[in-house]
């Protein structure tokens, strides 16, 4: 993450040139598409396509690695939980019982294992497109993209404001922690037990809250004084007219959903298991 707290990586690729709202739309359609299925073949294809898109967007693997590791750990935990809670769920869906493990009458079936794998890949297939949106969209475009998709500009702008002040609040938090550390409050592992550390982190919330409230006051005055909320609509400094590229991707996004509905209704309408 950069000093400003955004994930944006400046490049000049087709995805960087694409309007933020179109990328958001693509993300939404992609997600709808994925959620229609429970089929590992679809997810595998989409995951591969997704990573190809990331490659085209010239996103270095180094910067997506931490997020990738995070999501993989998340899905592993998710799978373990699923297997423990419902060890026969996959078999109930398919009607086949291939028992792999029998512990005191609780049976883990191969189908459940496969179900967990499918589910994991489902989550992972959403990752590349999400990263694509986050890494190629300038934070300055977030608000106007949302607004273009019909979200009220006041709601949209609040996201922009949050992005604007996150780095400031983070700096302030570091300051506060430093000041408390000098007064003998431990914040690092090894200086005190975990519960004590958590409690210490809670104490900094009070000064952080006070200063944030003061900031809110200044920000809202500054915005009022410069006419925010004067009219029902507003224009955006960073908005450009849509280009051919953008229209192509609108078509692609919609086509993706239609394709999904078609395939779902005609071919792959239930959980696929080998």
């Amino acid at each position, binding site marked *: 993450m950069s000093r400003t707290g955004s994930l944006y990586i400046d490049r000049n690729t087709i995805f960087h040139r694409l309007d933020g709202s179109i990328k958001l739309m693509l993300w939404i359609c992609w997600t709808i598409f994925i959620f229609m299925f429970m089929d590992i073949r679809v997810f595998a294809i989409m995951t591969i396509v997704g990573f190809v898109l990331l490659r085209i967007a010239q996103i270095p693997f180094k910067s997506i690695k931490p997020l990738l590791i995070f999501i993989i750990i998340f899905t592993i935990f998710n799978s373990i939980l699923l297997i423990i809670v419902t060890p026969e769920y996959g078999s109930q869906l398919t009607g086949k019982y291939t028992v792999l493990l029998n512990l005191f009458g609780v049976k883990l079936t191969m189908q459940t294992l496969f179900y967990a794998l499918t589910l994991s890949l489902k989550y992972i297939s959403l990752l590349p497109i999400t990263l694509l949106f986050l890494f190629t969209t300038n934070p*300055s475009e977030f608000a106007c993209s949302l607004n273009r998709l019909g979200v009220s500009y006041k709601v949209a702008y609040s996201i922009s404001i949050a992005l*604007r002040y996150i780095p400031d609040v983070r700096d302030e938090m570091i300051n506060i922690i430093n000041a408390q550390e000098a007064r003998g409050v431990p914040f690092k592992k090894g200086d005190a037990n975990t519960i004590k550390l958590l409690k210490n982190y809670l104490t900094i919330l009070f000064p952080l809250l006070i200063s944030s409230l003061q900031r809110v006051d*200044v920000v809202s005055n500054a915005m009022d004084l410069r006419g925010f909320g004067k009219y029902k609509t507003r224009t955006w400094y960073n908005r450009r007219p849509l280009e051919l590229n953008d229209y192509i991707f609108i078509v692609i996004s919609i086509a993706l959903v239609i394709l999904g509905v078609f395939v779902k209704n005609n071919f792959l309408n239930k959980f696929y298991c080998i």
Partner: protein
Amino acid sequence: MSLISFKNFSFRYKNLKAPTLKNINLDIEAGQKVLIAGPSGSGKSTLAHCINGLIPFTYKGEITGSLEINGIRPYEKSIYEISKYVGTILQDQDGQFVGLSVGEDVAFSYENDNVPVDIMHKGVNKALKEVEMINFIKEVPHNLSGGQKQKVSIAGILATSANILLFDEPLANLDPYSSKKAMDTIDSIHKNQNKTVIVVEHRIEDVLEHDFDRIIVIDNGEIVADGTPDELLPDNILSYYGLREPLYIEVLKSCNIRLSKEDKISKIENVKKFKDSIVKDYNLNSKVKDESDKKVVLSVENISYKYYKDSEYVIKDISFNINSGEVMAILGNNGAGKSTLLKVISGIARQQEGTIKYMGEPIDRWSVKKRGQVIGYVMQNPNHMITKNIVFDEVAFGLRNNGYDEDFVKKRVEDTLKVCSLYQYRNWPIMSLSYGQRKRVTIASILAMQPKIIILDEPTAGQDYRNYREFMSFLDDIKKTGISIVMITHDMHLALEYAQRAVVMSEGRLIINDTVYNVLSNKEIIERANLKETSISKLAKIYDVEDKSSFLEYFTNKIKDGANC
């Protein structure tokens, strides 16, 4: 018809019993440049809020009498209507920067006015050129200094059609160099664009050298003085109402020189004719002071620090001593490395090279906590330090963390509170204390740990002259306990009056370590570190005094003694 016209105007905040502004009658003509001054709580900000519409639209209350701006009554319209005529720059440079980049922030009013994008971009570029910030158009606020952010805010106002520019304490939080730049920008806008400029500020010395047409002094909700600087400065009106006069005028007055309007003393060049009496007074009374040797408490030896292995050093090869019982000032502009130096001394950051010794013993391996017991650090903003509700608990916090038993804590805290004149407030909620009192609580909470050195970051920022005096005499009392005080400050005069020694940082290096008088009369150092010469030094130059350092010392002390009796 005046541009702004208050007639028998009073205002009372909804939750207060007494009115904050009383019977204001004031006319400001188009094209004027007006300074509104007054101590904290005088109502000067309230007056500013009435002009820009925050009153009554954000801060509710009761208005009597009338106020007309450009022929309309703002309180009968909306805050948006007023923003067509009045553009406001708030004092918090960071908080008012609402855009994610420079260009967006300047465009903010355009966006709200539904201005088409192409016209918007042209306007933004033009406004940014006006304040010389066009090269920063894509920069994010995090990478800008306070002064640069302020310029962007000014550009944001220039982008509107507002012909009244209202600056609410524009110099708060700015270092001396940026302050001067900010006033220059305001000057050039006033001259080139024929705007009406209203500045609310209590740092009169920094403001007045920039040709104001008028000073309006407010105290206790009423206008107590209104005139040109030449009319007001000869009298003692400013100091009577708790405002600090420009230093050279204090010098003149300390020598009992009779001043009149005709002397035109608002320009320092015009006081040349008083040379004889001033120089005579100086020659008669100044004496050489002897410097006694003191014990070294902390020595910093060849310290260098960088954030990352492959980045450049933020501070390089810094060495100096802190002696017991002395007050030392660390001077330098934002970005010179002052706060990094402090972080290294307090152990929050670890130097890559060099060593720090306390009483001769290296403390490089000491933890932050252990260092905290000998080196206390007081942050600039007290709200960042306070974590408890009650004064007593806040002061006891550090002691309790270090595991002292409760009887001991009680005794120590009560003693400390007495030293800090806070004993009567020991059971008060901190939220009900004033800013200055809170600042004192944070100092008490550090003093309770009985450190040998206390580091104060901008101790007087945001306080008016009356509070400044009170606070500094409090520090003088604390000094008597034998503690060493290190202050980081932008206020050259504070350093002069209260520090014996000054260390000046510039671009990560220590460029001088000498008595504060020698430092601040050294023109080369002042220029190199972008510090600001005080007007006493200017006076020394005008009067061709040979030993500027001792001239500075003599009159600084003379004024200080005068103010304290």
